[in-house]
Each structure stands twice: as structure tokens, then as C-alpha cells.
């Protein structure tokens, strides 16, 4: 294995997971730590471009942290934000970023309570990096400890929107499709579920590495795996088009406003019904089920009835050469 950190270690794929396990010696089980009745999480954000269709790095930072708290069943309450800014960065852009952080925090009903600013020399960072930490109050502790054979897997909406809209912009692909990042905080989507009697077993937002990484992480080194029906996964036509052109499957593209939820089988229809009431999750669907026999594996059933294993991505997927 490589003896230096490579870009791939930060891609959110298997190498990231190994880095966390082997070097930081941290259990990478959950998106946020559960501390008695509190949840605590932290996340750093670097993204190119800083402004994209549907949001910017500020919106991303707040919603990412809010969503991580939701994953463990907490109601997000407070957020801190720390900025690393490159000398020469325009104040106007910074103001835009801060405004959208505040806007998103307001929507999520969380308070930004403290922060920090560092400026580094020109060329030492890509404009702005933001670190956010968050604290929430546990409503229903969700840590995956009670996942059972037959539980249903639900996704709250279409996949790949964020990843492909960013790629379209970053790579100057200029593919003429009407696609926006889905970046958003999901408090209004998830809190009603947490406050209901639905038996939620596990939850994770499929960010870097996409749905493929998310599902693999959920069952990584656990006693169960997933069987997923490809034709049930909601995917926008625009995403399909870019996916074809780039040769990258939507399963590997990042999302910033979706959640994968594992619930008790009997509760699945009700969960989807509740989700569909919110415009953010109107395309929610049951996409598969938990299988104990699959131990740590994610198997896709194609619409043609054939099977294939969906692996953790090795690194960020590359557009095909031809």
C-alpha cells in the first residue's frame, strides 16, 4: 500500500475507511458520536467549485453536519464553524457563503454558536475550507445494533444529483441538462419519522462514494448484507444521461440531500408514505432488503434478473477515456 497520503485517501471510498481504522484507530461505525443523550459530530468541507447549481460550500457545510446528527437519531441544535481562507479571496464571495450558512441553519432550526477564522497564504488552499461541528439531542438512538433479516431499505429520493451536477460544472462538460445539486438539510424530513412509532434501525446519508459506499459502510464487518433491486432506485433522466456520457454509474456519485433508512419491514410502507408528503423526499422508495446470508455484501438484482455485487468504490470514479 502507498506510504504517503494520496488523493484517494480522501475520496470517501475504501481507502478513507482504512485510514480511519488503521491510522486514527477510530471506529467508523456512525456518522456522529452518541454521548449519553447527546450526539456530536464534526466535518470539514472542501469542494470545487465553491459555488454550484443548487448551493455553495456554506450550504453544504451546514446541511452536512445537520444530516450527520440526524443519522444517529438526534435533533440538531448547535453548530460551530471554522474557516480557513486563502489570502486574496473576495469578501463578497465570503459574505455569500456566510449568508447561505445562516439561511440553511435557520431552515434546520439550529444555531451557529461559535467559530474561528484562519487566513493562509495565497496558493495554500482552494479559496475556502470550512469545518463545522454540531451537537444534537438524541430522540431515538439509532446505531444499527438491531438490524434484522428482512428489514427494508429505503432511499428518500433520486440519487446522483449532487455528484453529477458538480462534475458537469467542474469538468466543464457543459452537458446541457437541467440538473441541480440536491444539497439540503433534512431535519424536516427525518424528525417526523423520529417522532413517530416507526422502528428505524439504521440511517446514513449517501454522500461521497454515493449509494454504493453508503450501503457497503452500513454492512461493513456486520452480520448482514443488502439485496437491492436496481429498477427500484430512483434516478433522474438527467443523471442517466450524464452517467452514460461519463461512463460513471449513478451509484457512485455523491448526494447531499438524501438519506438511506433501514426500517422494520412492516413499517416500510408507512415510512415511504410519510416521506412522500415532504417535497424533498417525494420520490422516496423501498429499494431493497436486509439479508443476513449476504454478510457485509451488497448485491444488486438487475432488472433482467441477473445479480452483481456492488462494491465500495476504490477512489473517485474517472470519466471513461473514450
Amino acid at each position, binding site marked *: *500500500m502507498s506510504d504517503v497520503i*494520496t488523493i484517494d485517501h480522501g475520496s470517501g471510498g475504501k481507502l478513507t475507511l482504512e485510514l480511519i481504522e488503521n491510522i486514527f484507530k477510530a471506529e467508523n461505525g456512525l456518522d456522529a458520536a452518541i454521548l449519553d443523550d447527546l450526539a456530536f459530530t464534526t466535518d470539514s468541507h472542501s469542494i470545487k467549485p465553491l459555488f454550484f447549481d443548487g448551493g455553495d460550500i456554506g450550504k453544504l457545510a451546514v446541511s452536512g453536519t445537520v444530516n450527520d446528527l440526524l443519522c444517529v437519531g438526534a435533533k440538531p441544535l448547535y453548530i460551530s464553524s471554522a474557516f480557513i481562507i486563502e489570502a486574496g479571496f473576495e469578501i463578497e464571495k465570503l459574505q455569500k457563503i456566510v449568508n447561505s450558512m445562516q439561511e440553511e441553519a435557520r431552515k434546520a432550526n439550529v444555531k451557529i454558536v461559535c467559530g474561528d477564522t484562519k487566513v493562509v497564504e495565497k496558493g495554500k488552499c482552494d479559496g475556502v475550507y470550512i469545518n463545522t461541528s454540531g451537537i444534537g439531542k438524541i430522540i431515538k438512538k439509532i446505531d444499527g445494533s438491531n438490524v434484522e433479516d428482512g428489514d427494508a431499505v429505503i432511499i428518500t429520493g433520486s440519487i446522483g444529483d449532487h455528484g453529477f451536477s458538480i462534475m458537469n460544472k467542474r469538468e*466543464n462538460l457543459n452537458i446541457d441538462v437541467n440538473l441541480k445539486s440536491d444539497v439540503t438539510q433534512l431535519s424536516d424530513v427525518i424528525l417526523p419519522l423520529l417522532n413517530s412509532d416507526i422502528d428505524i434501525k439504521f440511517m446514513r446519508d449517501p454522500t461521497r462514494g454515493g449509494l454504493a459506499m453508503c450501503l457497503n459502510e452500513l454492512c461493513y464487518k456486520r452480520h448482514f448484507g443488502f439485496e437491492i433491486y436496481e429498477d427500484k432506485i430512483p434516478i433522474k433522466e438527467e443523471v442517466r444521461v450524464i452517467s452514460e456520457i461519463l461512463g460513471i454509474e449513478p451509484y457512485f456519485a455523491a448526494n447531499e440531500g438524501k438519506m438511506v433508512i433501514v426500517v422494520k419491514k412492516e413499517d416500510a410502507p408507512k415510512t415511504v408514505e410519510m416521506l412522500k408528503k415532504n417535497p424533498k423526499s417525494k420520490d422516496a422508495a423501498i429499494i431493497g432488503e436486509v439479508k443476513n446470508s449476504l454478510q457485509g455484501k451488497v448485491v444488486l438484482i*438487475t*432488472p*433482467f434478473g*441477473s*445479480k*452483481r455485487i456492488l462494491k465500495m468504490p476504490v477512489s473517485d470514479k474517472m470519466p471513461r477515456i*473514450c
Partner: protein
Amino acid sequence: MNLELFSDPQIVKKLAKAIQTEAAKLKKEIKIMHICGTHENSIIRFGLRDLLPANIRVIAGPGCPVCVTSSRDIDAVINLALKENVCITTFGDMLKVPGSKLSLHGAKSHGADIKMVYSIYDAIELSKNSNKPVVFFACGFETTAAGTAAAILDLKLPSNFFIYSVHKYTPDGVYALLKSGKIDMDGLILPGHASAISGLRTYERFAFEFHIPSVAAGFEAADILLAILLIVKQINSNQAKVENTYNRVINYEGNTKAQQIMDRVFSLGEAIWRGLGTIEHTGYILKDEFAYVDATKHFNFEYPNHYIEHKKGCRCRDVILGKAQPTDCPLYAKHCTPYNPVGPCMVSDEGTCKNFYDGGIGE
């Protein structure tokens, strides 16, 4: 054209059934080769091998542009970066392909300035903002070669921008291999994108000279199954001709405009294919008129005396020739993974071993 038809499960199932029926008439087990990395990708993605009867084997040929790039060229480019202080730009997949000692990626830690780009346009942009020479390491088959040629003709290139072309022409590569008897197969699925450029005309000699049914296919499940069905039908009726199931993209003459552009910029000469050796008439070489962008004319290219195409144990050569499946290689998924590829076939999403690995096959 209704694209959805090609991924309609009912149609796919019907095709699979038709193949079963036709295959029952086959007198022996047959091998159908495709020569396109994207086809392998689709086959894995749709689990198509699952749907085929046991007497039809679909194997991958030399279809990945990264896999067939010789270590010699990778070594030379690394040397150039280290000795002449130039910046090398190339596609992401290329960075990880092992050369004799190092990959381009590995050469970075020895001080080489190597940057990933998504296209030649990126590389040109980069050179505009650079005060040193920038060399674009241009790999890929006719699809990508057409892009390189167009960029040279269309754009005003910065004076510090150069191209090192290892572009290769597929049809003559496969033709030479067939002629040498190095590959054997009973039918050929013709590549989707590459044939769109070169046209189907050039494949007729495959049918005539070697009696190989050849069918062009797109990348949806039904596209590929339909091609397989037609090949089996040809075999059963002892025919060998070129057929086209992808006429929404490919035609007989190909993309003549792209051909003309390439003719202006390149001549076809020798190329070294990794593991397969030198093949005439398959290397896109910049014509003299374009010497001003040709990196080989501007820098002191030091080609290694000895270069290692395949590490010990690696069976990439057989994999590229369709003689072995990735799972036949003792290193597959054990010592050789995409995290630490021993051979080139484990690097790119178009590489056969990488496709197998991603599909979780044989683990």
C-alpha cells in the same frame, strides 16, 4: 429511436431466451470476443454472463486503451518529467498504471511534476498558466485520437504545449493478432464508440479472411445480447459477415469527417502494444507538419533499454488476448487489486481485471 427498448427487461429476457434456443444448435462451445472496455463494463454491470448458456463464453480482448500502453512509453515519460523539468499531463487512469519500476503517480514522490486532466483541453488550459513546458501524454484509441487531432487543428496552442502520442488504431491491432494466430475466437463483437469513427468497412476483412462473424453493438443490455444472438445465428448457418445492431451510432463508412481530420494530423506507423509487441500500422504518429507540438521532436526522449511489461505472475498478456480470465491469474484480488494494481488490467474501469473485481467476481 427508442433508447428505452434497449434496456427493457422484457426485451432483454426474450433475447436471452432466443440465445438459449439458438445455442442449443451449436456443435461446440464457442468463444465470442469483444474488444471494447466499455462492453466489458456493461457485461458486468448488467450481469449478462449470468444470462448466457454454458456453451457460449464471452471474453474480453484488447479493449482498454490504458492496458495496452507500453511500459516503455510510461518509463520514457517519467524520465522526461524527472530530467527535463516538464509537467506531464494525462488521464486519471493512466497515472496508476505500473511502468517498469514506477507508475506516473509513484514518480511524483520522486519529484516529477505530473498532473491529471480530463481532456486535452484541460491540458492546454493548464499550459497557459504554466511557465514550463507541458506535455500531454495522449493515449486512447481512434475515439480519443480524433479529439487530439481536432484540438491541434482547431485551437491556437500555447508555445509551451506538447503532445506525446501513443494513440492506437484498434482494427489493425486485432487484425494483426488474428493473423499471427495469437488470439482465437469464433465471433467478434465490434466496439461501439471506436467503430463509430472507423466505420464497419474495415472489419469486413475479419469476416472474409478469418471467417469470423462480426457484429457491432452499443452498450445497453439488449444491444450486446442482440449482437451475441446474431453471431450465434451466423455460426449456426456457417456464415461470416459484418452486421450492425448499433446503427443509431455506427455506419459502414464511419465518421468521415473525423477520419479526414485524423488523416491530416497523423500517419499510421508502428506502435508497441503492452505485452503484444510491435504492431505495424497501429500507432498514430504526428505528421512533420505538426512537429511543433510533437514532444518527441522537442525533448530528449530516453527510452529504457529494458522495460518490464508484466510483473512476475501477472497474466495481463493472456487476459488481453482473451486466453485467460482475470480469475485465472494467481494474483487476482489477492496481491493485485485496484488499490495496488500489479498489472495494467486492474487499473482502469475499462480494464478487464478491474471490471471483474468491481463486479465482485471470483471472490
